[in-house]
């Protein structure tokens, strides 16, 4: 950069040389530019390649029952990943999503099963709990000006403690009313069993994608994550946008709680403990930058699918579970390294 600058400042005809220096593009920088412009491109390619590779290794991988299983395994992390995406787009992070969703899930399952409330009312109470968890995170981040990492590390413990207290550390496995577990019901398309939960998840993805891409609020979410000071100077009320993101995330977590109950036909105190980090994994593998302002919600769905495909593919290939864990770890690091490289386009 400094080299280019001195070239421009030299008197005479060095200007063209300088422009050439600045505009120099190799195939590699062009690929980087493309990935920079379409953040969901790299996870889409990874997903495609991994499905093909696992299919070649073991054709059983691509049979309908197996694909159905993958889609069902992805439903919970995929749904909660939407909430995580919104928060990471603002430059934040939420370590408490799994605990908050499980807390909301217990409120839904327990009030419907043990207190015999109407299912609609139980779901509404779950939604309120989800909103409350998001509101608390959001207020601590925006009003107390605490870093999201620390806030949600704290609320992770708080929500976990609350859910253990409320559930007496016991699972709810029997007698859950049909509407509460309804998202786990399946229907068949061309031999593939699809749950209503998976369909509902895709619908929510589509809605959030439209909101992010085509409403002013969505644009402000990106602007706030990109450069909060620039957003403020442009007249965006940064704290209001941030608070609204945490509250919307809370609502999405309540929806994830409903998915959780449908997936397991009930709920247990530890059902969400792995989701806290898995949702971050899905977002990161999906090409969303942890620095905020760059990424798409569809990328997160791809990221969740990649994790599902890798775990299932390695299992079908007959490898031990530890290799699944290893593979996901490598994926995360590769994804973040790729993001760092892509972001160099700015300079």
């Amino acid at each position: 950069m400094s080299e280019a600058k001195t070239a421009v400042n030299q008197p005479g005809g060095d200007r063209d040389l300088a422009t050439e220096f600045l505009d120099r593009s190799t195939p590699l920088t062009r690929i980087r530019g493309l990935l920079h412009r379409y953040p969901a491109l790299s996870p889409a390619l990874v997903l495609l390649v991994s499905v093909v590779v696992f299919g070649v290794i073991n054709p059983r991988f691509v049979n309908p029952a197996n694909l159905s299983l993958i889609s069902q395994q992805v439903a919970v992390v995929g749904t909660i990943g939407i909430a995580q995406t919104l928060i990471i787009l603002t430059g934040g992070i939420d370590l408490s999503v799994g605990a908050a969703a499980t807390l909301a899930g217990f409120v839904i399952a327990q009030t419907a099963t043990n207190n015999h409330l109407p299912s609609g009312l139980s779901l509404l109470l779950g939604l309120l709990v989800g909103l409350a968890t998001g509101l608390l995170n959001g207020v601590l981040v925006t009003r107390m000006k605490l870093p999201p990492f620390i806030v949600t590390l704290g609320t992770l413990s708080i929500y976990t403690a609350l859910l253990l207290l409320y559930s007496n550390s016991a699972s709810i496995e029997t007698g859950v009313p049909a509407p509460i577990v309804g998202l786990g019901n399946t229907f068949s398309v061309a031999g593939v069993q699809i749950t209503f939960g998976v369909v509902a998840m895709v619908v929510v993805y589509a809605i959030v994608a439209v909101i992010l891409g085509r409403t002013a609020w969505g644009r402000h979410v990106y602007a706030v994550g990109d450069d909060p000071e620039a957003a403020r100077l442009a007249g965006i009320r940064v704290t209001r946008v941030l608070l609204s993101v945490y509250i919307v995330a809370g609502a999405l977590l309540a929806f994830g709680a409903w998915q959780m109950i449908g997936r397991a036909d009930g709920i247990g105190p530890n059902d969400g403990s792995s989701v806290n980090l898995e949702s971050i994994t899905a977002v990161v593998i999906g090409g969303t930058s942890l620095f905020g302002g760059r990424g798409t919600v569809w990328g997160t769905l791809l990221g969740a699918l990649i994790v599902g495909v890798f775990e299932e593919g390695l299992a079908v290939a007959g490898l031990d579970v530890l290799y699944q864990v290893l593979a996901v770890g490598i994926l995360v690091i590769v994804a973040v390294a790729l993001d760092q490289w892509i972001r160099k386009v700015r300079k």
Partner: protein
Amino acid sequence: MNAMPDATASQSDESLAPILEARSLVKTYGRVVGLDGVSLKLYPGEVLAIIGDNGAGKSTLIKCLTGAEIPDEGELLLDGKPVHFRRPQDARAAGIETVYQNLAVSPALDVAANLYLGRERRLKGIRGSVFRLMDIKGMRDQARAELKALGISTLQDVTVPVENLSGGQRQAVAVARAAAFGSKVVVLDEPTAALGVRESNQVLELIKNLRSKGIPVILISHNMPHVFEVADRIHIQRLGKCAATVTPAEYSMSEAVAIMTGAQTVVH
């Protein structure tokens, strides 16, 4: 709002009422006097440069004009009416747009999105009123038209993310945003400080285009050649006061610097 042909035109404009006027502004920070009774008038269709050494009160003056600071004493008149800005948004709402030194653009958003950031337009009908959808195509078309009207030819594609642009082009986006929405006054804080020669020239051309559209500009700059190229009048700050207001036609660059540093004084 008709085109003013060139720099000399504005000198006769002093017969007009000023668009923005500051009267005896005082601003102190504890025992430090930032502004010590500074007055300033900005007339329609002129470029007023503000120069001064570090600590002379340039920034404080600009902050008081744009709502970033509230003056302790003195008054501010916009179109002859007293105004009181308590925050930058107040000044913007009144039609004073500021382009900050650190470029208030959002790097990952495209050119059109940046022009409309914070004032997005919605689609007509229920798609806009109920579903809150933005008129993305309309904003892009309008952005192209605004850039063209400002004579910014280097930005062909308004869908390019701003981070892919050169420094001069980014500055052009920031200036275009300030000028595009019927603003009464555009304030530019060191717009060429971070730019190369060619890019600086593009920004200076842009400033001249603003003037020819009748939009008055306040330009803060350390760069004397740039100031003398575009300014109609030069307000020289020294030690918290206005040492003089001169025109480039009557004073040379070295005289202006001499006034700025106190080596020369002007008797009004």
